[in-house]
């Protein structure tokens, strides 16, 4: 068995209304050092099998197909097999 993590982030240039609001809230709390903030998604997966290369290729497929929307999002993954 393997574990994997997928990080989904908004592409550069895509406005992130949620991120902007969290940024403003932090600034309002006095955390002036926060200059920008973008909200993304984090997923943990348990995968059957231990062929890391194959799992990575399958997970890439899953990310492109469902987990991320390639029009607005990028993804990055880590597989521990």
């Amino acid at each position, binding site marked *: 068995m393997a574990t994997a993590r997928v990080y989904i982030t908004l592409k550069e240039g*895509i*406005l992130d*209304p*949620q991120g902007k*609001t969290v940024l403003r809230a932090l600034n309002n709390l006095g955390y002036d050092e926060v200059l920008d903030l973008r909200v993304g998604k984090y997923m943990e997966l348990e995968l059957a099998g231990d062929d890391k290369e194959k799992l990575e290729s399958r997970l890439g497929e899953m990310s492109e197909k469902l987990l991320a*929307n390639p*029009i*607005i999002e990028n993804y990055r993954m880590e597989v521990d097999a």
Partner: protein
Amino acid sequence: MRFGVVVFPGSNCDHDCYYVLDRVLGQQVEYVWHAETDVSKYDCVVLPGGFAYGDYLRTGAVARFSPVMKAVEAFAADGGYVIGICNGFQILLEAGLLPGAMMRNTGLKFICRFVDIRVENTSTPWTAGASKGDVLRIPIAHNEGNYQVDATTLEEMKRVGQVVFRYCSPEGAVLPESNPNGATESIAGVCSREGNVLGMMPHPERASEAALGSEDGLVIWRSLLEHCGASV
């Protein structure tokens, strides 16, 4: 005409669409459960508004893999008429049947109110009965209507007339203050290159009877009926 109104788990405008097509327009309508695998017997498929599959992951992201969507893709490729309203539009975007993607409204609020939209292209089957520049008063009800599309795709869409509706002032001016959700270039509705697939955030089925405050949505249904030679 024969209409099929798709019902996903979480659809909530399916009955409104059915009612308007059946009772207001006198057309044949059936509900189509999301597990169906064939929609070829219909002339037009309606993807109604709602929160299909709870909008989990992204709006439309899970619904887009429903068995019925494979059938809708084949139907659309064959030139069948497909209209996606609100959540239905979001599903069409996720399915790649229309270009672009939806983000959260810039104000982060769910917006439920009447808006004005300007008809930008009258050469589609959905707008042939309107005049260019007509302003339609139709309600929106969404949290993710902030339409995004890359610049190159958008230029091509504008060139071939895929931008069908834009949010505007009551006088028909497209202004930043009349854009409720931050959508790129105030886009409220787009169609496929061939024009047979339409996606729009405003709800024409909620503006199809005077008693509900507006009949401006009727022009969309009637344009299609006329285009297909159906009797109203």
